[in-house]
């Protein structure tokens, strides 16, 4: 029930923002639409509702994950733009394997997405049971699993563990 309530609230807020400025007909329709969404997909969206109650997690998300993410994202863009514009195309691509100790679905999803949006790396596949991610790297600096993990994943792992585990 709690899960569905969370999804209902999120869906309703998104609906309100899409139908700005609010007016009672839109709000009424929104209640029905959000309730339908919550009824159909409520069990998939939030699997552990008690995790939403810790204010410290939001704090870490807003003030240590987001700035980090945007900074890395900007660096990624400048890096790729430089490689593309360079006349000799300085790329050295390959798929490497990295290990992660994160366990939960949300944390793994965020890790994979962050890796995709950061300099030169793109997640190809996840093996959840072994805790292994396969990452396409545009400029392979080290083929060894341990060292690649250090370079690619560590900057996010620590922060994500505080937020999602």
């Amino acid at each position: 029930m709690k899960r569905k309530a969370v999804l209902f609230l999120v869906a309703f807020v998104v609906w309100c923002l899409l139908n700005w400025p609010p007016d009672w007909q839109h709000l009424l329709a929104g209640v029905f639409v959000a309730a339908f969404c919550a009824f159909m997909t409520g069990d998939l969206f939030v699997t552990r509702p008690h995790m939403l109650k810790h204010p410290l997690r939001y704090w870490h998300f807003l003030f240590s994950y987001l700035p980090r993410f945007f900074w890395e994202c900007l660096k990624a863009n400048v890096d790729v733009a430089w490689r593309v514009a360079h006349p000799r195309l300085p790329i050295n691509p390959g798929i490497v394997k990295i290990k992660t100790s994160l366990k939960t679905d949300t944390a793994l999803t965020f890790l994979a997405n962050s890796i995709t949006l950061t300099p030169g790396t793109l997640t190809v596949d996840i093996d959840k049971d072994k805790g292994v991610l396969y990452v396409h790297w545009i400029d392979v600096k080290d083929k060894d699993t341990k060292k690649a993990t250090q370079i690619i994943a560590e900057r996010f792992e620590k922060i994500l563990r505080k937020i999602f585990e």
Partner: protein
Amino acid sequence: MNELIGLIFISLGLAFDVFGCLGLVRLPDVYNRLQAATKCVTLGTASILFGTFLIVGFTAAGFKAILCMLFLLLTSPVAAHAIARGAHRSGVKLWEKSVIDRYKEDKEGEA
């Protein structure tokens, strides 16, 4: 003032989008092209939307721009991930000068 900052964001976004498209043309294989497409096009488009939000402010269009930005940041890496995985599974080869392919090694080990 807001309009000026918004225009700066929009021009930056356009520049990144141009680099993304250039990458699509110049880079050698699917995976490298996906790199250029996801990174540059995601941040470029997000930056254009943010510039729009700064110019129009908290109006109907502004809120929609912010929502689009959120969904874009959430979904575009997932799409890239799905395309890359699908391409690899259906046998698209890496560029011949690629240095290593651990994914293929592991898959062959299983089979």
